[in-house]
Structures are given as structure tokens and as C-alpha cells.
């Protein structure tokens, strides 16, 4: 299963630990370098960290080559707009979006989007998404 993670935020490591046993092909895309993160995973062959200068322009292309997408950047506007871009092209794509702002999270939750926030991370089961 090909899993793509867009953005490195403080929950990216948390999510990786939850899904790493289900995939040997996890790509992490980011516009910035996070050396602590890169050092932690550089010896792990299942995880490939890719720097993209204009990630917003690559979202649809990355999605098409992925089975599951995690939108985990620190930017709520980036995550929510990327979600829209993906579902407009692939309405049935398996996708999870992280939202930092509680009000925005609740708005999307009401609309039945697949969203997570720091408040409910521990209660969220990612395995159903990433199991083959």
C-alpha cells in the first residue's frame, strides 16, 4: 500500500508510528527541512522523505500515485484546500486531514469530512484506512 503524508508537523511522527506496520512504502512530502525528523527516519527503508518547493502544486499528482493520503501540515488552509483538490478529482480517495484550529475542525467534522485534531488523536484508529 502506497501511503503519502503531506507536511511535517508535531503529529506526523505520531501518525507514522501508528501506520508503519501496515506499509513498506510511506512517502513524506514537505516544503521545509526538519532535520530531527529526517535523522530519526533516515535508516528506515519504509519511509522516504521528499522535499518539494511548491507542494501545493503537486497535491493532485501525489494523490494519484497514492492509496492513502494524510494531510498533516501545520497549516489549516493548506490541508483543507488540498483535501478539496483531491476529492474533486478522486471522490473516493482514502484521506485524513489534520486541523489545528478547534472551530475549523468542528466545522469539517459536522460536514462528515475525515478529520483529526490534537484533541482526539489517541482515540483515532488509523488501521482501518491503511490495511490492505
Amino acid at each position: 500500500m502506497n501511503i503519502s503524508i503531506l507536511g511535517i508537523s508535531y503529529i506526523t511522527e505520531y501518525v507514522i508510528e501508528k501506520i508503519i506496520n501496515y506499509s513498506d512504502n510511506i512517502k513524506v512530502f514537505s516544503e521545509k527541512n526538519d532535520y530531527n525528523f529526517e535523522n530519526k527516519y533516515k535508516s528506515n527503508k519504509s519511509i522516504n522523505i521528499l522535499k518539494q518547493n511548491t507542494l501545493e502544486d503537486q497535491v493532485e499528482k501525489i494523490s494519484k500515485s497514492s492509496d492513502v493520503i494524510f494531510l498533516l501540515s501545520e497549516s489549516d488552509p493548506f490541508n483543507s484546500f488540498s483535501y478539496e483538490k483531491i476529492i474533486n478529482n478522486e471522490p473516493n480517495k482514502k484521506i485524513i486531514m489534520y486541523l489545528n484550529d478547534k472551530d475549523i475542525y468542528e466545522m469539517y467534522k459536522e460536514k462528515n469530512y475525515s478529520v483529526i485534531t490534537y484533541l482526539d488523536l489517541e482515540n483515532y484508529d488509523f488501521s482501518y484506512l491503511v490495511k490492505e
Partner: protein
Amino acid sequence: MYIIISGMNNITINLAKKFISDGNEITFIGLDKNKAEEIEKDIGFVTVLGNSYNKSTLIEAGIERANFFVASNMEDEINFLSIKLAKHLNNEIISICLVNKISNKKNFSGEDFDFALEYDEIISDTLNSFIANKFDQLIYTNTDNHTEIRVISVGNDSNLIGKTLNDIDLSKESEVIAIISSSGSISHNLSNTLNPLDKIIIQSTIIYKNNE
């Protein structure tokens, strides 16, 4: 009309000047404190500092009573989320969104996006005319005798210009009370032709549906 503009830049400042000259009320939302001070000195109206995709900022700006929300930031993703939240807080509001990248335009097509305009359309008179032509405001409702009073504005490009009230297809339950010209004079001579920025005050009987 009350218009909230997200994004403090030369485009929106020029737009705001036009909106105000047409009698609208404006509030800006943005993060640039220096720009906010410059705006207040220049045209003297209200700015709210903050992100327009933040609920508290939108409420402080008066989103719940606003008629229009214009998202005109230079980043599409900020305009996108700002309009989503603005519509969530006030589903009656009419949203107008600047689309910076043409390739993104298809993503502004959902029910939350009433109008997605490109840069050329924002800086032209398209937006200003659109808002001026949409002025239809309920100002009074009397539930005892089932009447309401509305104000309809004649926009700069309105198809009402040059017509008399007899030419307008008002419902039989409606009655024109007066016409206020752009200079502020009030006329009860309903055979006069309408001019840009005239305001028509109408009293109507409310027709309730059977199940109401």
C-alpha cells in the same frame, strides 16, 4: 449593505473606496498592522487584525450581520478556508472569492462559493457593480399585520435605470412608499424615471405558505 473584506492590499483598498461611495459599510480583516493603520488614516473605517479563517476574528468583524464576504488575499488556500468558515457562521452571506491561480478555479465551485472571480474581474468594476445591483434589504417586519418594508437599490448597471415604477413588475401585494435619490432627496412622485443609486422603499404584505 455590510461588506467584510479579507485581505488588506491595494486591490481591496480601491474596492472599499468604491463600496463606501455607494453607501455601503466596510470592515477589513488582515494581519498587517501597519497596513491597517494606513487604511484607517486614509479612509477612516474599521479594520480587525487577525486571520479571516479564525472564528473569533470573523465574529469580531460582524460576520453574523454581514451581507457580503469578499476573500481577496493573495493565497487561494486562505481565501478558500475563510469563505468556508464565513458561510458556516452565516449561511445567508454572499461570498466573493479572488482566485489567484486560474488552475485552482475549479476548486471554488461548491455551494459555499457564490462567486469566484479572477484578478481582472476584481480590479474591474464587475464586483462593485454586482454588489450595488444586489441591494435588497429587509428593514422592518410587522408580524401583527403581516407587512414588511424593504429597500431596493438601483445599482450602477441595474436594468431598472431609466424605467418608471409602472414599468417594474412588482407583486400585487407590494406598494412603493418613496424613492430616495443618491443626493438624499425623498420623492413620492412614482412616475419619475429611476437613476443609478436611487433607493426604492417598498411595503409588502407577507404571504404565508399553508404550513407556516
